[in-house]
């Protein structure tokens, strides 16, 4: 199907106008900077709480001693932790929370080492 020629020209001009960002520029003056939603703050707070939890845990003497006893270098673990993304960090913090209940260092150690192993192996697959 073919459009009549005058209509084709109008359509072409219309399409050309849309494909440039002229319409956006025309309205740009009216755009008001928006408030950042509350969820962004709560998200940040939740990540920093998770990070603080993990870091304070890594500083525990008994925990470091357990790591060394198993031939794992605590510094290596700390540097691996630093490269976790936000979601992984939160997962780890949740796991630590659960394992920490009852103050069982060995239980947490198993969890931490496994989480790190799984995360790092999964990334390489």
């Amino acid at each position, binding site marked *: 199907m073919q459009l009549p020629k005058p209509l084709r020209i109008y359509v072409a001009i219309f399409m050309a106008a849309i494909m440039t960002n002229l319409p956006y520029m025309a309205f740009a003056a009216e755009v008001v900077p928006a408030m950042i939603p509350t969820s962004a703050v709560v998200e940040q707070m939740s990540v920093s709480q998770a990070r603080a939890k993990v870091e304070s845990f890594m500083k525990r003497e008994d925990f470091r001693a357990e790591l060394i006893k198993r031939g794992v270098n605590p510094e290596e673990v700390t540097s691996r932790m630093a490269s976790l993304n936000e979601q992984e960090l939160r997962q780890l913090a949740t796991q630590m929370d659960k394992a920490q209940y009852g103050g069982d260092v060995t239980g947490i150690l198993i969890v931490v080492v496994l989480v790190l192993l*799984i995360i790092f192996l999964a990334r390489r697959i």
Partner: protein
Amino acid sequence: MKKFLLAGWLTLQIAACASPARQTEQLLSGPPGVPPAHVLTGIPLIKHEAGYCGPAALTIAMQAAGKEVTAADLAAQVITPGGAGSLQMDMISAVRRNGMMAVAVENLNQLVEEVASGRPVLVFQNLGLSWLPRWHYADVVGYDLPRQEIIMHSGNEAYRREPLRYFERSWGLADFWALVIIKPGEVAQSADELAHLKAALGLEQAKMLSEAAFAYDGILRRWPESLGALVGRANIAYQKTEYQTAVNLLRVASKAHPDSIIARHNLAVAEQAVLK
């Protein structure tokens, strides 16, 4: 690689088996500052048919928090047709739709503290096995530490006593999922600032703006410098075109948290809105 993951998973499972009732032991060895036994009297049980433990347990907790709802209303909101039961997310969103806050409770100590402060705790349990689950919702309405028992409205049975250890197992198999329901403006005894913020944010996102405002105000009474509550309350004020209120709140936020870029950005936006 798969072998490795499998081995890791197996070890996790074994670790899980080898650590029975640790929370119970911790609770019994050093209970948080609560009376040794406490039962919430006068909490009505909601009788229900099989598959309806979700709405029934939710109704009990909602009514105890002062919200007048019926199990029939809630059933329509939480039952997944064809699924014969209710999903946890649906339970939380039903709480929000009714303008209440769902605050997470994460461990046995916290759970006992909540019950001692007068609030029933809605819990999710797996009464079956980890690989053959039988999911169940119930309300914890009391505890008895000398007798090592938890007291629940469970199924069609009121004030049912169960050994704490059994309860910890079935609760743990459901990933220790539990919540207390509170009125916006109140704060739960045991939960932290972040847990309350998440509940208040849920109300804000469900567009229950006046309830969310009450919730943020309540958080600010308890944690006056709460960044999340200040920003949240300001966002609601802004949406209601109360720009000066938003500015005042965000000034407090930027002063208390000079590092927060969000607080500063929103302050600038609100200040501009005041000038217009």
